[in-house]
């Protein structure tokens, strides 16, 4: 990584060579721990001076090795991540943490652990509800995770270190939210593509370096005169994963993507971890309750014995109304990665919700490959024509 680059140019460098900084840190003696999903509590890694590194897929990488381990009709993102691992692209990792945030990740984790030989591997189980007993169980899962990390590092997970790590990660969340504030003006100050660069870069850096990158980027964007071109549509993308600038470019050709509500966008940064007497309680609540992935079963009232559809939609998607209003969004693309069941089941109900708040939306599916971009472009253009009429 160039020492001179800052802000967006630095983010671009890291985006194009994500493992570069992690490898440098490894050469300096740091231990690098991979994770495939935003549900892994990174604070616990940071508190023990481990460097978290998100093991992303690569849409340009044809899947070959993962075919021997997973069937074709399976989450293409997890297949792609596993494929990269089996090709040795993550061999610099000292360990890996997977979590039961969805069925494909749980199933892939078993195979991943079996076919690789990192010194450390841990699987965190995760309940599907936010009921009190589920939160308590998830807290115990995080406690067990902490025990295995302590054994691996030979260090103690003290409350001070824990709170300091939470503070750093909360700061990162606040900075990402600040970055998204810059898309609110009618002429956004930063593009969706640039934000994708920055957020993906963060997932390859220690939290403090990520925070510096965000601060530099925010200052740079606030002070620059030339921002992205204003286009007719202001889009919200709602998806499982949208973490690639080539995909984002398809949407931004004729629109401004002012909000990316996916795991490659704001999802992991929309709120902060609460400081609690037992830090694990705050973490359990944040990761199980606050991250708005379709994998969590939400209800208007826990254990409800009566149900109405409007209340149900509000409990599942109500947070999106504020986003639509604050960012003055006039179109939503519900982008489904093929075979992603938790998101796929949401599509008709989410469409109902967007209809109920008077916003145009469309559902588009793709398979997380470069080959999917041309048909994706056709579908996006067709949608933009309808909302610009």
């Amino acid at each position, binding site marked *: 990584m160039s020492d001179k680059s800052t802000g967006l140019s630095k983010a671009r460098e890291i985006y194009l060579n994500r493992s570069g900084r992690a490898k440098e840190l490894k050469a300096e003696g740091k231990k690098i721990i991979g994770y495939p999903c935003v549900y892994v509590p990174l604070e616990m890694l940071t508190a023990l001076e481990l460097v978290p590194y998100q093991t992303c897929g690569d849409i340009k990488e044809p899947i070959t090795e993962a*075919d*021997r*381990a*997973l*069937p074709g*009709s*399976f989450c293409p993102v997890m297949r792609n991540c596993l494929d990269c691992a089996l090709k040795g692209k993550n061999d610099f990792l000292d360990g890996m943490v997977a979590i*039961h945030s969805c*069925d*494909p990740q749980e*199933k*892939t*984790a*078993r*195979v*991943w*652990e*079996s076919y690789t030989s990192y010194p450390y*591997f*841990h*699987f*965190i*189980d995760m*309940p*599907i*509800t936010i*009921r009190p*007993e*589920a939160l*308590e*169980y998830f807290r*115990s*899962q995080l406690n*067990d995770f902490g*025990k*295995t990390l302590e054994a691996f590092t030979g260090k103690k997970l003290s409350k001070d270190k824990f709170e300091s790590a939470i503070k750093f990660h909360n700061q990162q969340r606040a900075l990402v939210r600040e970055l998204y504030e810059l898309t609110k003006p009618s002429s956004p100050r930063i593009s969706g593509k640039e934000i994708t660069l920055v957020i993906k870069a963060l997932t390859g850096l220690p939290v403090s370096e990520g925070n510096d990158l965000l601060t530099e980027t925010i200052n740079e964007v606030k002070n620059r005169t030339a921002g992205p071109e204003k286009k007719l549509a202001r889009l919200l993308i709602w998806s499982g994963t949208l973490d690639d600038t080539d995909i984002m470019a398809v949407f931004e050709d004729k629109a401004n993507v002012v909000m990316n509500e996916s795991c490659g966008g704001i999802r992991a940064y929309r709120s902060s971890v609460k400081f609690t007497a037992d830090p694990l309680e705050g973490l359990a609540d944040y990761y199980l309750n606050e991250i708005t992935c379709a*994998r969590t*079963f939400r*209800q208007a009232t826990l*254990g*409800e*014995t009566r*149900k*109405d*559809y409007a209340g*149900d939609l509000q409990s599942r998607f109500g947070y999106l109304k504020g986003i639509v209003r604050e960012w003055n969004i006039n179109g939503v693309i519900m982008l*489904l990665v093929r*075979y992603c*069941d*938790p998101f*796929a*089941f*949401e*599509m*008709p*109900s989410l*469409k*109902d919700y967007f209809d109920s708040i008077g916003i145009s939306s469309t*559902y588009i*599916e793709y398979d997380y490959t470069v080959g999917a971009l041309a048909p994706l472009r056709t579908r996006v253009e067709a949608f933009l024509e309808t909302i610009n009429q």
Partner: protein
Amino acid sequence: MVVEKKKKTINRLKSMYPLRAKVNETYLKSIKAIQAGKPAVWGMLNFYYGDPILKAMDVEVVYPENYGAIAAAMGVARQYLDRADAEGFPTHLCGYSLTTLGYTARMMKELNGQIPPEAPFGGMPKPLFLMSSAAICDARYKWFQALGRYMDVPVWPLEAPLPGIKEFSVEDYYDEMVKMGVTHLRDFVTFVEDMVGKKMDWDRLDRTTSLMIEVNRVWHEINELRKARPCPMHSRDFWSAMPAALFLAGDLEDSLRLYQDMYKEVEERVHSHVSAIPDEKYRLVFAELPPWHSLAFFDRLAERGWNFVIESVGYHPPIPIDLSGISDPLERITRFSLQFLVGYYQDARKQNVLGGTTAYPYLKYAREWKCDGALLHPLITCRSASPHLPYVSDMLMKKMNVPSLSIEGDIVDLRLFNPEDALGKAEPFEETMEHYKKVRRQEGFDW
């Protein structure tokens, strides 16, 4: 279909027929009771976690997963799949879920809550509530949530912890799972009481739980007898007999007696060296749900000497566990249900098979039931039942020199399984099995 018309070769167990008849009879009684106004619940297969509670509360349960298979076999699923497609659900979702979503959309939006006239076996009436389950796959709780679009019916999602094999050995791990399970079930009982308007009879729940555990213990012992050579019981009999243990279908006391009868018959066959097929040349394990619509396919394989001696772990009873010292029925239920998920963990860790909680049992089966091969049946729209199969195949070969034959199919779309094509692969696979039989012997295996 030509294969359906040929004679049946498999020597079916006589004791299976009354057990199967009892299950069918109970199902029809249940449908009549529901049609007469008794409340019904739609439930997901929950691996013994919620069913004993509903049974003790005298609540009738219908299982849309099973109904999806019935609708497919009776040729009415297509219109429900099309309806689900028109409603905006992606076509690659679980075939059972799409069938239910399409069925419900038709019932609630077109027919004002009336059961569709074309629905086989009396259909599924609008339920009092839905009991989903987090066990095994995401679809099985997201699908019931999605039904809220058509029915204002409450959903109770049953939690189902699923640890890693290595992580399971962390101190207090199991106790935390039990703790969550018991608390969760206690709240579920309160929910059911509120929904049906009566209190739980705890003595009845206690008896129901004990019977459930005993029924499954006997069922497990029956399957242990299948290790005999020749194998006395074919997978066809397993699939016919499993609902009474897996879904607690029918009266549990009747089921216990009928399983005990089955045990006697299988034991007698073992003593008399009676095989489930005329000439057992190859012993096979079958992985995942069978092609329900083409079961006669197994008769054709039986003619070639293929005996299916064991099958998918997902439908087998848990390895027996002594729970007699636990007085709280909810804790017994929790531990019994957890045993289904973690019963193989200790052994799997010893064998260093960390990948695939559902994969390790196949290695145990191959070793203890002395299998020559595995017939894998990946299901296109069932992503929970298929992803571990490449890994199973790899482990069977690497660790035991047991080859696999993979034949694709689906749970609903009948066109995806071609029995003639599958039969065409039988002869070359026999050569493969013969080859690896020699390899195993050279490497010191005892089969």
